[in-house]
């Protein structure tokens, strides 16, 4: 997912309600947010992402910053929407959602159809991580955000975020090695 061309002009045009600019922002932000949510909130990823998109597209007047700042702002909104959903769900005591492990094993058909196979496979691997590790990897790799921004979004110290990403990568490498060894011994 590449950068936004002519960032300042695009942002200003989107604020002015020009469709092409909103389309550019959608293409750059929405798939990232959906991928992030598909791991962390698989049952309601599309709905939360659509709510976040409206918040983003209609709140651009409040945004100031560069492209990385825009992504950080967008993920902050998406994360708040996700937390709101979880709170509402907790108040309703709704039905239990699929766990991340269940998500990793299967995944809804429509979700698979929505994402390229390689991306889907990667998301399923990330979904096997503990939630905070998964979130850090997603915000780094999908969101394209630096540690400092992730620390703000997750309300953690940068050192904690670094530890989480180190643990996540090591776990993913361990899993990959184990899969390779299993494949060889078969």
């Amino acid at each position, binding site marked *: *997912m*590449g950068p936004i061309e002519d960032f300042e002009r695009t942002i200003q045009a989107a604020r002015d*309600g020009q*469709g092409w600019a*909103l*389309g550019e922002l*959608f*293409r750059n932000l*929405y*798939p990232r947010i*959906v*991928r992030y949510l598909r791991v962390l909130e698989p049952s309601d990823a*599309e*709905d939360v992402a*659509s*709510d*976040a*998109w*409206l*918040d983003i*597209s*209609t709140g651009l007047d409040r945004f100031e910053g560069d492209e990385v700042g825009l992504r950080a702002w967008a993920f902050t909104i998406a994360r708040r*929407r996700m937390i709101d959903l979880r709170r509402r769900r907790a108040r309703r005591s709704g039905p239990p959602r699929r766990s991340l492990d269940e998500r990793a094993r299967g995944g809804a058909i429509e979700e698979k*159809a*929505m*994402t390229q196979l*390689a*991306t889907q*496979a*990667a*998301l399923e*691997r*990330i979904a096997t991580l*503990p939630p*905070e*590790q998964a979130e850090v*990897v*997603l915000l*780094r*790799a*999908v969101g*394209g955000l630096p*540690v400092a921004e992730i620390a703000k979004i997750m309300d953690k110290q940068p050192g*904690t975020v*670094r*530890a*989480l*990403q*180190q*643990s996540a*990568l*090591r*776990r*993913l*490498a*361990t899993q*990959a*090695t184990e*899969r*390779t060894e299993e494949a060889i011994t078969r």
Partner: protein
Amino acid sequence: MSTSDDPTVRPTGDLMLDERTVDHLLDGLLGPQEVPAEYVAVVDMVRALSLPPSPAELSMQTVAVEAALTELALRPAPRGSKTPTPASGQRWSERSRFFRAKVASLVLVGTLIATTGLAAAGALPAPLQDAASKVLAKVGISVPTSDGHPASSGEEISKIATTTDATGVDKGAGISTAASGGRSQAGQNDKPSPPAAHPANPSQPAPNGAHGKSDASHAVQDPSGNAHASGAANDPSASGQEHGKSRAPA
């Protein structure tokens, strides 16, 4: 979270990457040949996470942009406006759900058409018949309620239609009388029905029949001579005791 509380990872030092390598790996700046062998799959995975969006992932773009434009247009003027901001986040969610609901709606329409036929034939259980009568009346389709239900059941009517020795008008009149609880005068005045009431092709149902309306007089005038009282009497699904009641319009 420290790595020590993670029982599945190997001890510190094993598979450990320096901070710079971790950053570059997660930024997608490292190729498979630039990392230890254990991390080759991780490099591929991270790259896959940031692949360009698929067409399917962008399929909602038009709706999303339109929804954003609508929201922006509905925003109140910055000063002096008392118009409340619309509930942000609701409209597009509703729209995206709308598309999913479309499929369900098509199924519903199919069910409605089938139900309308059964309701027009009086072949539904009484509570459903009353409900169908009310609902269909709102869309201009006249369907009897369960109150005016004749005594004859679809099964009885069907039996008459298939066992009677009468033919033509006489047969139709008998069926019509039974189906309407004696109210129908069909076939008793020796007048042929107007041509418009018949389909050009005898094998095709009359327009009324297409809407599932039961009209005994049509059955009487069936040019094939194979009289039938209503759709319900001929519908295998409507021939049971519970929902096989045939009715003529009042």
